[in-house]
């Protein structure tokens, strides 16, 4: 097949093109022709099709995501907002922090180890592309039913992949989630997040400006793996003689990525970089068109200069390849030599593949012929936008009417005790140490809190103790019952987790995992969840700085539960003041903060004991969350509490169990007036936390809560080596521990 040049395309308008196989719709292809005023070349078609895919263009979600920009709360901390590789916030002392969560769901189902590993690799490159040193990763995970045989294939592979990649990069894993539910059976969710730290002056953006500046491609060679993986395309369409079915899963090379981190940071430190972009989904198509369209000029790229692993690749394939561990930097001509020398020092292959021009076109050449000549904005930013129809599904009413409050409750103390053991040993409430022990949480020597604490916390300034905390949460069951409230509950929980550790919540990133946008019911769930997060962030004063959308998590007609995962980043002036979750001191008083109501819809109890999902999720009161957060942060700062644990799924008994086991101390609980034992232990009312208060601080603490109007109830004391609920039952810690810790290892043995 002869080369399809721009000239050729103008001369042969009627050639049949494989736009359909590449995933474009008829009207999208027509629009490409209209934009170009001719038919696209094969290379241009490749670029438009990957960049206009759902994954890269956000064409179904864009109209909703705009709310994150429209409803931004006033917040001085925001330095870089939505639209860049990751958002950046000011954390004080001249430091800035960037963080983001992304999904790698589909690849992780097909090849769990490499799919998850390359998910970590991708998010870490987003962080370095902002100019930051990555300092930690997190991994919110959702798997099919715990006892399903395929879970045994997927989960260990995913965990090994996340560990294998993150551990090899030297990034402590400081948090995540593991939730099992049959709804994720064919569509496990592998979300990976990362945090990076930089000085304000080191913030870098993805833009190519300054005519004459060079485009340097560095990192791994480009290979034939993962071509069009973003839009899950086959590549045969380009040339039927090529090896068929190029796999859309890539093998990651964490060693190469570690070198990329070090050499990129060294180049930043020497101020050699004008603009920078990582290569992720849509590879070079994305990097070149985004760099060019964010900058002031045009760009010219010589595709022949791209270092290849496979010399038979066609230009279309080179443009679409998603080979991992590659970055693209814009460097002034005079600094190119030094940039290449740093790459050489780190054994990283680096090549000048083009330059910034003073025009406004992105032009790509192959064997001396022009094969791409486009306005880069039309590729990167002016893709299709869909107003997909959405509608509240008919079944929603019936689901909400199936009230969990009507489920049979335990008849006596003995049954209550049995249900407590069932709950804390159920797969979703059981200890996740089997997973987290496979992650290095100590590397870099700055980890203050990690699993199983409420949030992960790392120190960023050794001298002053300045630190940041991150928590990621989501509850698909709540979101299924009511997506708006469910999304706000995820936000509230992450916010509360950060505050419980003593850090002040600052900013939000989200990863929105949903079914097919072509289903109006799913689209409604999505719209409601986005609205919930946007409204919630406005009220809490924490801006959304970025995020990721993963759609089509669906097998046949059955979509996953709507699963918005929300990450909240917090800051703490001195990590010495962090609040751990362990009840470490015998004799300290236990206080429950917040109101406890009869709220069991979507609760862990309704799942673990009755396998039930119905009713309404707990009510959200974000003003209350804010107040609770302020109290928790003040109490930590002033040394009034020694331990705090937020209450979420599993309610009070889950929190008390975890804090007791962590500290190796028991607790004696008394049911306060106005509550029954069952509701006290299992309700999942939001806006609550349990704290352990030294007797000397009791008055000061309760006075503070009283003065601020936060309900505070004394519920017991840290004591002994059992958890006792007075008048109901006693469970020795050992028994709780084996129930809590044995479940996951047994499932995966």
């Amino acid at each position: 097949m002869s080369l399809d040049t721009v000239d050729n395309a103008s001369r042969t308008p009627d050639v049949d093109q494989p736009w359909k196989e590449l995933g474009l719709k008829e009207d999208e292809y027509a629009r490409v022709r209209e934009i170009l005023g001719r038919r696209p070349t094969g290379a241009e078609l490749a670029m438009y099709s990957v960049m206009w895919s759902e994954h890269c263009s956000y064409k179904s979600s864009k109209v909703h995501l705009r709310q994150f920009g429209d409803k931004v709360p006033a917040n001085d901390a925001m330095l870089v907002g939505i639209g860049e590789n990751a958002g950046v916030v000011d954390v004080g002392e001249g430091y800035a922090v960037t963080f983001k969560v992304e999904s790698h769901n589909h690849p992780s189902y097909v090849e769990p180890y490499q799919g998850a590993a390359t998910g970590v690799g991708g998010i870490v490159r987003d962080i370095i592309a902002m100019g930051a040193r990555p300092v930690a990763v997190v991994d919110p995970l959702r798997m099919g039913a715990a006892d399903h045989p395929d879970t045994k294939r997927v989960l260990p592979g995913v965990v090994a992949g996340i560990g294998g990649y993150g551990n090899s990069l030297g990034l402590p894993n400081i948090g995540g989630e593991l939730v099992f539910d049959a709804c994720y059976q064919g569509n496990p969710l592998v979300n990976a997040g990362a945090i990076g730290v930089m000085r304000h002056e080191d913030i870098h953006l993805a833009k190519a400006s300054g005519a004459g500046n060079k485009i340097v491609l560095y990192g791994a060679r480009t290979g034939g793996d993962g071509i069009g993986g973003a839009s899950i395309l086959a590549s045969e369409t380009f040339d039927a003689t090529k090896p068929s079915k190029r796999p859309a899963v890539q093998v990651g090379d964490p060693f190469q990525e570690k070198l990329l981190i070090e050499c990129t940071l060294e180049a930043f430190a020497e101020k050699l970089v004008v603009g920078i972009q990582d290569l992720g989904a849509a590879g070079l198509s994305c990097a070149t068109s985004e760099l060019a369209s964010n900058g002031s000029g045009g760009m010219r790229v010589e595709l022949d200069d791209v270092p290849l692993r496979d010399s038979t690749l066609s230009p279309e394939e080179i443009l679409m390849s998603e080979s991992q561990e590659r970055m693209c930097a814009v460097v002034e001509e005079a600094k190119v030599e030094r940039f290449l020398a740093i790459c050489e020092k780190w054994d990283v292959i680096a090549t000048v593949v083009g330059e910034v021009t003073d025009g406004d076109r992105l032009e790509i050449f192959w064997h001396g012929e022009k094969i791409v000549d486009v306005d880069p904005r039309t590729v990167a930013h002016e893709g299709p936008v869909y107003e997909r129809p959405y509608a509240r599904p008919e079944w929603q009413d019936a689901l909400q009417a199936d009230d969990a409050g009507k489920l049979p409750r335990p008849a006596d103390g003995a049954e209550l005790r049995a249900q407590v053991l069932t709950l804390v040993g159920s797969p979703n409430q059981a200890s996740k140490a089997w997973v987290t022990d496979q992650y290095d949480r100590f590397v870099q020597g700055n980890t203050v809190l990690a699993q199983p604490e409420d949030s992960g916390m790392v120190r960023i300034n050794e001298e002053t103790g300045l630190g940041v905390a991150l928590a990621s949460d989501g509850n698909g069951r709540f979101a299924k019952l009511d997506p708006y409230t469910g999304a706000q509950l995820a936000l509230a929980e992450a916010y509360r987790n950060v505050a419980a550790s003593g850090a002040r919540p600052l900013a939000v990133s989200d990863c929105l995992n949903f079914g097919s946008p072509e289903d109006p019911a799913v689209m409604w769930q999505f719209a409601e969840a986005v609205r919930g997060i946007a409204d919630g962030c406005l009220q809490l004063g924490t801006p959304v700085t970025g995020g990721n959308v993963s759609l089509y998590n669906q097998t046949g007609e059955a979509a996953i539960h709507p699963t918005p995962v929300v990450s909240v980043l917090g800051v703490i002036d001195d990590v010495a003041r962090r609040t751990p979750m362990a009840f470490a001191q015998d004799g300290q008083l236990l206080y429950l903060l917040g109101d406890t109501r009869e709220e069991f819809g979507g609760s862990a109890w309704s799942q673990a004991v009755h396998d039930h999902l119905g009713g309404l999720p707990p009510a959200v009161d974000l003003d209350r969350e804010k107040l609770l957060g302020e109290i928790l942060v003040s109490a930590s700062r002033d040394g009034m509490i020694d331990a705090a644990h937020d209450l979420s799924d599993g309610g009070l008994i889950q929190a008390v169990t975890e804090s007791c086991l962590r500290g190796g101390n028991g607790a004696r609980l008394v049911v306060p007036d106005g509550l029954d034992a069952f509701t006290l232990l299992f309700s999942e009312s939001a806006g609550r936390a349990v704290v352990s208060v030294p007797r000397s601080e009791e008055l000061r603490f309760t006075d503070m809560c009283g003065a601020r109007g936060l309900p505070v109830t004394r519920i017991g004391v840290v004591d002994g080596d059992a958890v006792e609920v007075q008048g109901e039952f006693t469970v020795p810690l050992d028994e709780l521990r084996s129930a809590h810790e044995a479940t996951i290892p047994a499932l995966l043995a």
Partner: protein
Amino acid sequence: MTARIGVVTFPGTLDDRDALRAARIAGAEPVSLWHRDKDLKQVDAVVLAGGFSYGDYLRAGAIARFSPVMGQIIEQAREGMPVLGICNGFQILTETHLLPGAMLRNNHLHFVCKDQKLRVENAETAWTRDYTAGQEISVPLKNIDGRYVADEHALDELEAEGRVAFRYADGNPNGSLRDIAGITNAAGNVVGLMPHPEHAVEPLVGTGGTDGLGFFTSILKKLVTAS
């Protein structure tokens, strides 16, 4: 004048900055060494830190052993310069045969990260003098290739000569033969262990203990009194 402790960075080394920090906290002057250097910058002792040198793709430590800096380190170690290999550093030391045996994939096949109790068996090496024999310390363990193996004869010899420097004290985390967590050469200047003392030098971070600091204070005292 205080002692200069060099920490080697191979491509893929991860805990180099932690080891430099630990040396500094102990009062030494930390010095960065680069894998391509042939010059050891007049350091008094060397730490080979943890990580995945050159990706550890062939075998942990196998490629690092052939790097330029190792030539000098091997030579000077034979002449008595103190060398501490932590985790990947220990793996490198076995690949160079400065220490006997080899490290294999953990018997449970998983990476393991935990707070590990160790018993100090030999408190007379250059790196363990600030401990007492039989003392139990707690430091982080984190690796996937941490299973120490050697043939029976070599193991017997290690035991007979008191060269088992550390043993796992609260359960064997990886199937290491005879619970061996770390060993020393006959002269006591070259010590390797899988757990990470450099992550246990500050009360707030890591496992929150400072049991690992003794490695760095031991060497400092030895070097400063010797000079």
